C-alpha cells in the first residue's frame, strides 16, 4: 500500500544512513492509525464486556429493539441499547464485543499454531535442502491443491468425537482417583472444546504460505557469511537454526502473523456460518454474522444485527491487513 519513499530528511539523517524497518514503519501514518484502531478494538473486546453489567442481564421482553431504544434490565433499572437487541433481547453491543474476544483469541492462537508449523517446516526444508526440501515442498504443493475447506471440515468432524470422549475419560479418571482440582479443571475445559478444535484445525490448514516464505528467506540467509562462520566454528545444526536463523526470521514471522490472523478469523466465520464454528450460547463474530445474515429478509430487515458485527469485524480485519502490508513494506519481506 504505502510504497512511497519515506522522507529520510524528516528524521534529520542523510540518504547514506538507511532507515531501519521500525523507523520506516513509524513514518507510515496509515500503519500507525491501523495499529491504534487495532489496540482500541482489542481493548474494547477484552475490557468492556465485564463492565457492561446491565447489558448482560437484559430481559427477553425487548426483542429486536432498534438501535438507541431504552431497554429495562433484568435486575431492575434500565439502560439504552445503543446498537439494538437481538432475537432473545440480548444487547447487540455486548454480544459484538464479547464475540470479538472469541474471534480474536481464536485468530491469534490459530495463527500462532500455523506459524509454529510453517516456521518449522520452512526452516527444515530451507536449511537441510536436498531430498528433505523437495519432499516437504511437494507436500506443500499437494496440500495447496487440496480444497482447504474440505480438509478443515474433515478434520473437525474427525476430531469432535474423540476429543469429547477423551475429556469424558479424563473426567472419570480424575473422579475415580478423587482429584478434585483436576476434575474441576477438566469441567472448566468442556465449554471450550469447540474453540480448541477450531484453533488446532485452522492452524493446521493455514501454515502453507508461511512455510514457503520462511523457506525462501532461509535459502537467502544460509548463504551469508555469519552462517558459514557458525558452521566453521563447529556449531550444531540445531544451534545454528535456533541461534542464528530464527532471530533473523522474526520480522517475517511478525509480518505473516499479522496477515494470517484475518485469514483465520474469516475461516472461523465461514465455519460458524456452516454451524461448525463457535456454538451457542458463546458467540464469535462469525456466529453473530450468521444470525445477522438470516435477519435480512423481505418482511422486516433487522439490519443492525448484520451491520454491527460486520462493521466491527470489517474494521478490525482491515486494520490488521493494513498493518500487515505496512510491515511487509517496511521490512521488505517477500
Amino acid at each position, binding site marked *: 500500500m504505502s510504497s512511497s519513499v519515506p522522507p529520510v530528511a524528516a528524521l534529520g539523517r542523510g540518504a547514506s544512513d538507511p532507515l531501519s524497518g521500525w523507523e520506516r514503519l513509524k513514518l507510515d501514518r496509515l500503519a500507525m492509525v491501523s495499529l491504534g484502531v487495532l489496540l482500541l478494538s482489542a481493548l474494547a473486546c477484552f475490557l468492556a464486556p465485564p463492565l457492561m453489567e446491565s447489558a448482560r442481564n437484559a430481559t427477553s421482553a425487548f426483542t429486536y429493539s432498534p438501535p438507541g431504544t431504552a431497554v429495562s434490565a433484568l435486575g431492575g433499572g434500565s439502560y439504552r441499547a445503543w446498537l439494538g437487541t437481538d432475537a432473545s433481547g440480548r444487547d447487540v453491543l455486548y454480544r459484538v464485543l464479547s464475540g470479538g474476544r472469541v474471534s480474536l483469541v481464536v485468530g491469534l492462537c490459530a495463527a500462532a499454531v500455523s506459524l509454529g508449523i510453517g516456521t518449522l517446516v520452512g526452516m527444515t526444508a530451507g536449511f537441510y535442502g536436498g531430498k528433505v526440501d523437495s519432499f516437504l515442498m511437494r507436500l506443500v504443493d499437494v496440500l495447496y491443491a487440496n480444497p482447504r475447506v474440505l480438509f478443515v471440515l474433515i478434520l473437525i468432524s474427525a476430531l469432535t468425537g474423540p476429543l469429547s470422549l477423551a475429556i469424558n475419560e479424563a473426567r472419570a479418571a480424575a473422579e475415580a482417583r478423587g482429584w478434585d482440582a483436576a476434575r474441576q479443571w477438566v469441567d472448566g475445559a468442556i465449554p471450550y472444546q469447540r474453540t480448541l478444535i477450531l484453533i488446532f484445525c485452522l492452524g493446521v490448514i493455514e501454515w502453507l504460505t508461511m512455510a514457503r516464505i520462511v523457506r525462501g528467506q532461509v535459502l537467502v540467509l544460509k548463504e551469508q557469511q555469519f552462517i558459514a562462520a557458525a558452521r566453521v566454528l563447529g556449531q550444531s545444526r540445531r544451534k545454528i537454526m535456533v541461534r542464528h536463523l530464527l532471530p533473523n526470521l522474526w520480522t517475517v514471522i511478525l509480518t505473516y502473523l499479522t496477515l494470517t490472523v484475518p485469514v483465520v478469523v474469516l475461516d472461523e466465520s465461514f465455519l460458524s456460518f456452516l454451524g461448525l464454528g463457535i456454538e451457542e450460547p458463546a458467540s464469535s463474530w462469525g456466529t453473530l454474522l450468521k444470525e445477522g445474515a438470516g435477519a435480512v429478509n423481505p418482511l422486516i430487515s433487522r439490519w443492525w444485527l448484520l451491520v454491527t458485527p460486520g462493521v466491527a469485524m*470489517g474494521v478490525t480485519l482491515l486494520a490488521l491487513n493494513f498493518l500487515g502490508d505496512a510491515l511487509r513494506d517496511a521490512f521488505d519481506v517477500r
Partner: protein
Amino acid sequence: MARFLVSRFLSLLAVLGVVLTLTFVLFRLSPGGPFSFERDLSEAQVRAKEVQYKLDGPLYLQVGRWWQDALRGDFRESMKSRNFAVAEILGQSLPVSFALGGVAFVLAASGGIAAGALAAARQNRWPDRLAMTGALLAISLPTFVTGPLLVLGLALHLGWFPVGGWTSWKHVVLPAICLAIPYGAYVARLMRNSMVEVLGADFIRTARAKGLPERQVIFKHALKVAVLPVVSYLGPLAAGLLTGSVVVESIFGIPGAGQHFVNSILNKDGFLLMGAVAVYCVLLVALNFLVDVVYCLLDRRIKMYDV
C-alpha cells in the same frame, strides 16, 4: 516449450492422483465411519454394508477399486441419497454453478485487472488509495456479509433485482457480484503490485523517453507484461468459482454444486465427496495447464526451457 508443457502436464496429473487418493484415505480413516448414522449395526451388518459399497478389504484395495471405477467414468452411487448416482447429482448442479461461476469469473478478472491497473497508473493518488482500501475491505469481509448487504440495498430497497432463486438472467446478477467481490479484490491487489513494478522498469522509461503518450505506454507496453502474475492466478480462481460456493448458494437459494462439497462431508457421503473433489481437482489441473499454455504464448522468455 513442448517439453516444458509435457513435464508440467505430468506433474499436474501426479498432483491429481495424490490429492484424490489422500481424500479417499482421509474419508476412510476418519472415525465413526460412513455407517455410523444407522444405529445399532452389528459387526456382521457393518461387514455386509462394506461389501455392498465395495469398502471391504485392505485400504489400498479400496482406493484401487475406486480409481478403477472412476477411470471408467463410474463415480458410484451416493451413499446417502439412495438410487442417485454421484454423476447424476453433480450433473444436475454443476451447470448451475458453471453459469454463475463463469459470470463471476469474468467480473472478478476484468474488474480486478482494470482496478489494479488504474490504481498503479495513479500510484499514491486518490484513485489508488480508494481502489486499494476498497480491495482490502472486500478481502476483510466474508461473502455472507456482502451478500445480504447487496440484497438489502439492491433488491429490497431499490427493487432492481430479485432477492433469490434461479429462474431468469436477473437472478444471476447479485450472486455473481457477491461471489466476484473477494476474488476481484485479490486480483486487483495482484495487478497493482505487478503493474507498479513494471512501470518502474527500463523498457517503460524508454517508451516514455521516446515520447509515447502515457495511455499508449500503459495499454500497449506495460499491461501486457504486468498481467502475467494475474494470468497464473486465473487457474485456481476459475476452479474455485466454477465449482460453486456453499455460502452464496444458501444466501440466494441457488441449486448449485457448492453445497455438495460441504454436505457430503457432514453426511459422511464418501462417494459424493470423492466425486465433488474429483471435479474440483480435474478443473484445477486442466485450468492450470491451460494457464501454462497461455503463459508460454504471452511470455516468450519461457522458451528457454527448450534448451
